[in-house]
């Protein structure tokens, strides 16, 4: 496992020197979605909660950055703390109210909150620019340079993975899993599920905000689309496509999704059709995700086995 990781890290570190401009852009896009997907899975894998509200966390961080730069002339990198705070607050509100509901009702409530935020961004022309969004947000220095942005995104992904790994093997991480495995038993050993699930939601949402910040650095713009429910659907697809039960599954799923889109789009305009067919195939034939296709044995993952 360690050697595989080291090899992957080496390849990722050298990638910008092996790719042309367009390839580098695709790589950055994959990294941004990868950060988003890993963050989403922090919540999904550990609590089983399927949120359709993560676009709200992602998008609110992006809009915070965009608004601070365009309205208050802030320095690009300096907007990060506030962007993360915005994402955290949005996650806190949505999580606090939604977590008490189960399954489909949870999903619907997160969807409702996220759409509210989208509707505000979409219609408030004066403040958010509405449908036209906010454009021309070119970051200076390192983030404005494709190679620099690539490495910044790679670092962000590494940080997110480290955080997830840390949490998963900590008492808090085990607590989450206990609540997911058997809520009644968890209560009987003294765990109050609610707080932990909200905390997981907030952490997941905050890290999604990091992806939102990177999104602005990459696209130099924000549009209400970032907050629309289809963005939440996209990250869910990335996670399930890669495999939610594998540590790096979401990141790999994100990479596969982005590369696939780039390849398909270069041949045809019917990417949604292609994606739809891939999804159908996945749900019907390889529901555990792409990573599981490459594993010779399916084994129960005892946590000590994770690197």
């Amino acid at each position, binding site marked *: 496992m360690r050697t595989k990781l080291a090899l992957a890290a080496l390849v990722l570190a050298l990638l910008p020197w092996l790719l042309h401009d367009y390839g580098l852009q695709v790589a950055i896009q994959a990294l941004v979605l990868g950060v988003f997907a890993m963050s989403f899975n922090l919540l999904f894998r550990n609590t089983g909660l399927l949120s359709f509200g993560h676009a709200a966390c992602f998008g609110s961080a992006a809009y915070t950055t965009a608004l601070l730069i365009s309205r208050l002339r802030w320095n690009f990198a300096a907007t990060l703390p506030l962007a993360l705070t915005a994402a955290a607050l949005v996650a806190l509100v949505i999580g606090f109210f939604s977590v008490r509901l189960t399954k489909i009702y949870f999903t619907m409530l997160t969807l409702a909150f996220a759409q509210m935020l989208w509707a505000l961004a979409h219609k408030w022309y004066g403040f958010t620019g509405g449908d036209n969004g906010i454009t021309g947000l070119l970051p200076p220095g390192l983030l404005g340079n494709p190679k620099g942005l690539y490495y910044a995104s790679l670092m962000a992904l590494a940080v997110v993975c480290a955080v997830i790994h*840390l*949490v998963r*093997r*900590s*008492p*808090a*991480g*085990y*607590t989450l*899993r*206990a609540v997911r*495995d*058997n809520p*009644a*038993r*968890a*209560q*009987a*050993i*003294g*765990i*109050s599920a609610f707080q*932990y699930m909200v905390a997981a939601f907030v952490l997941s949402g905050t890290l999604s905000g990091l992806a939102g910040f990177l999104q602005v650095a990459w696209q130099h713009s924000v549009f209400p689309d970032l907050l629309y429910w289809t963005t939440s659907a996209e990250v869910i697809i990335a996670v399930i496509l890669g495999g939610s039960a594998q540590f790096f599954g979401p990141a790999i799923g994100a990479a596969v999704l982005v590369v696939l889109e780039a390849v398909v789009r270069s041949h045809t305009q019917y990417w949604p059709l292609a994606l739809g067919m891939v999804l159908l195939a996945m749900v019907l034939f390889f529901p555990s995700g792409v990573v599981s296709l490459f594993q010779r044995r399916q084994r*129960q*993952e*005892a*946590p*000590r086995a994770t690197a």
Partner: protein
Amino acid sequence: MPLLEVHRVSKSFEGFRALNDVSLTVEEGSLYALIGPNGAGKTTLFNLITGRCTLDAGRVVFAGQDISHTPTHRIIHHGIGVSFQRAIPFPSMTVLENVTLAVLALGGKTRDFARPLLSYGDAARRAEEIISWVGLNDLKGQVAASLSQGDLKRVDIALALASKPRLLLLDEPLAGLSRTERAQMVGFIRDLLRSLGTTLLFTEHDTDAVLQLAGRIMVLHRGSVLAEGTPDEIRSHPQVQEAFLGREA
């Protein structure tokens, strides 16, 4: 000194009277059983004591403290260990991780998110101690999902013992076990509790096992107390015999 006192407790669900004015007293050091046919109210009474549902009337007092309205996740801090029916341990974790988590939960350490679970040396050692009480030392590194039913029950009891409780509450500890496993479990529980000095209150369907294990028995029928006493008294109680003794497989 009575360790647990249930005073005239009642509970209704949408018009259906599940429990009607039930009282019981559990003395320290005893093994007390609640039996009765399906729907008699055993599990409801159990849930009321453990805080899983709220009572409509009456009180529950533990070691002099009123715990009538204490929610489940706080019950353990009073010195009560709980194991629910079909509430098996956490399948994705190993035995050691399961019990260590329970110990940490008691100590309020479950908010920690930086250090690995097993690096909490004191908690892990304590977990190993409890695991040895239930005789599962060899299996402590095994993932719970791969254990047999009988071993799972032992892990479950280990979780309930994490708080070194004065009172252990088990809801149908023998459910889902084969004949031989049941006999083993009965012996195991009896020996364990004798060595720990823990009081036991349990509900059970298997009347034979109950008559062997319990020191005192209460029979519930349709939400009310039908009979209460020692196994001999219960065995020879005419109404109990009529109600369901002998009908048991």
